[in-house]
């Protein structure tokens, strides 16, 4: 659908990831200098110039598999390590949070304000590091340039594209359940109260006109809700009050980050159908991934001492238990590219891409199928 969705998806998910990691780093009492290094390294990688250039090109959204791979890589852009279970949980939280934000946005255009909320927070994380700061500022400019001219309809198309991406995801998040923004069945609460979006009138008035434009009759009707006024418009510039609170940091050291796996599996059949990507597309995705990853400069961990592991769970036992008990339908397929083999992996990828494109002239779709399979198998083994 919309070919302008990926930057917003990436920046907002990335922003949520940073909120969660920041909370965990503090909750685990990681020394301030190490924590700061992790945040800086990840943000530097996120806003790498070459990487962003690829991201902002018009393109369809990546599959869930491809996007998860990108975030795996991003999370390991520094000296911090995450086990599989923690990475799964991190990704669950990130995606459910952004799904919530997209759904609750008063206007489709407000997704941009949500993105600016994330950007504002990211800017604050790196305010002491001028080199990264300038990359972040440059990204603001690109966002403003690309998105502020869009019409309401084009924003709604972006929103619809995002909602298809998040379709059928109902993972329950403890902080959402506690705040009563999510029901126990995993669905979000949509209030029919509060202010209406900027540009909308509170429902209730019917005006009827004569042929020459004079109002001849007014009727009021009961709107069934409890609407209390109209929202002001937030700022779409580099600075300013965003008004919308969605996309601001909802975590703090005292609010834990838990997800519940049970009770959501009844949607598993539907989830499967959305996740399936036909094999002939694998080639295009791998192309895109290769270009993206090429732009992502991932640090090799320095000496063994500076590396450390972050746990998204309260204890190591819980983390292990979570990995074992995670239902199959919720497993994220990831193309495994080990961060330590960065240079080698890139060279391999490039070689594979080269081999593949040479034979791209073959017309028969069934051979493309098996090529896709072989490619994926090779990458899994890297």
């Amino acid at each position, binding site marked *: *659908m919309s070919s302008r969705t990926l930057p917003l998806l990436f920046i907002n998910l990335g922003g949520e990831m940073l909120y969660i990691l920041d909370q965990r780093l503090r909750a685990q009492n990681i020394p301030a200098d190490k924590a700061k290094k992790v945040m800086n390294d990840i943000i530097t990688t996120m806003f790498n110039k070459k990487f962003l250039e690829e991201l902002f090109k018009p393109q369809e959204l990546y599959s869930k598999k491809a996007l998860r791979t990108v975030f795996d890589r991003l999370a390991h852009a520094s000296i911090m390590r995450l086990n599989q279970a923690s990475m799964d949980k991190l990704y669950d939280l990130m995606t459910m949070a952004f799904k919530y934000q997209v759904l609750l946005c008063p206007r489709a255009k407000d997704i941009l304000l949500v993105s600016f909320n994330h950007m504002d927070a990211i800017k604050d994380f790196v305010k002491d590091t001028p080199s990264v700061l300038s990359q972040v500022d440059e990204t603001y400019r690109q966002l403003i340039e690309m998105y502020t001219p869009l019409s309401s*309809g084009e924003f709604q*198309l972006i929103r619809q594209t995002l909602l298809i991406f998040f379709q059928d995801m109902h993972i329950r998040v403890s902080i959402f359940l506690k705040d009563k923004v999510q029901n126990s069945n995993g669905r979000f609460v*949509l209030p029919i109260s509060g202010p*209406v*979006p900027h540009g909308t009138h509170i429902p209730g008035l019917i005006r*009827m*006109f004569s042929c020459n434009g004079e109002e001849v009759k007014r009727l009021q009707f009961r709107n*069934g809700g409890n609407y209390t006024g109209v929202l002001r418009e937030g700022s779409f510039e580099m600075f300013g009050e965003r008004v919308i609170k969605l996309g601001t940091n909802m975590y703090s050291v005292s609010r834990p980050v838990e997800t519940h796996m049970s009770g959501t599996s009844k949607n598993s059949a539907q989830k499967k159908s959305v996740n399936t990507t*036909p094999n002939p597309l694998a080639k295009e995705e791998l192309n895109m991934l290769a270009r993206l990853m090429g732009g992502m400069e991932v640090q090799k961990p320095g000496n063994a001492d500076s590396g450390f592991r972050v746990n998204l769970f309260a204890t190591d036992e819980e983390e292990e238990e979570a990995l074992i008990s995670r239902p199959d339908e919720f497993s994220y397929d990831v193309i495994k590219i080990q961060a330590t083999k960065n240079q080698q992996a890139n060279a391999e990828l490039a070689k594979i891409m080269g081999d593949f494109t040479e034979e791209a002239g073959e017309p028969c779709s069934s051979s493309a199928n098996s090529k896709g399979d072989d490619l994926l198998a090779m990458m899994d083994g890297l």
Partner: protein
Amino acid sequence: MASNMYHKEKSIQMKSSASALYNNLSVLRIAPRSLTYFTVVHANMVNMVSASWDGLNYSHRQLQSKEANVATSSSLIMQAAWCVLPSRDILVLTSQKGIQMYESDGSIMVYWHALDTPETQTAQAVFARGIAAVREKYICVGISSGSMLVFDVPIKGSNITLSEVLEEHKESITDLASECSGSLECIADMVSADDSGNLCVWKSGEDFQLLNKIPGFDMSCSSVKLWKGTVVAGYGTGQIRLYEAVTGIVHAEVNAHARWIYSLDIAPFSGLLLSAAEDSLVRVWHLTMTPETNSVEIVHMYNECVTDTQICGAKFCDGDGYAFAVTGYDLSEIIRYTQV
């Protein structure tokens, strides 16, 4: 307002959930067989459910989007709708790659039209959206560029041809509607709406004729209906406006919903209007025409709140508006309501 005008019936379960797309429900009533078909789009597939009127028999079919040279397509479907013509009913699917047409039960694809897709991805999305059967023999489909394709449909068989391309809109087409009153006196046959809220009113024929252009106000018009020469338009601001089609005179303005309107429908025999939006509300209104004074009145009749659901489709199940059905984003059921 009658707070008990309708009550909820047993929902119909679908194989997958509804996607957040405008006008995401189409209903076809087949009286001779005492059943009703429902179609709902989910990403690259269409869920088709046939429900017998006695509530005992349900059958399901899923249709996939199509793409040239690919066995299974992941191309997203924007809309699915039945086109009721005198001699046949055609099910039309519009996607990012093209337009598929099926015989009414979805069993046979009778026509495929591929959209021109550029070699490299452009910033402007490419897709087809907006479907209407017009008069005896035309099916019109809108395109993201603003163009509209007019197909000529024979009484039977697959010899469907592209008759004309209408280039009037500059923004993506959102919805199309044909005159649904059944009256042959109406001059206007079809209305088209786009993302900037502009509406075009047409007369059908070998060459479609533009009768009027009603300017928008920079807000997308996502759903539109045409009944007895009156255009009913639903906007992203939650407003509904009624216009006289041929002149563009505004009959009424309604602050109808607190969020983006996703679906409108009219029951042609009774003049009931159904509106549904992202705000979880479905509302029923009544339209009355007074030809002597050339006025149209709209009154509010009923509200239904579908808790925690952003509604994406709402249609009457019959010409009187005795029953209506609703779909919502992420919901795998078609919720039904009937008059008490």
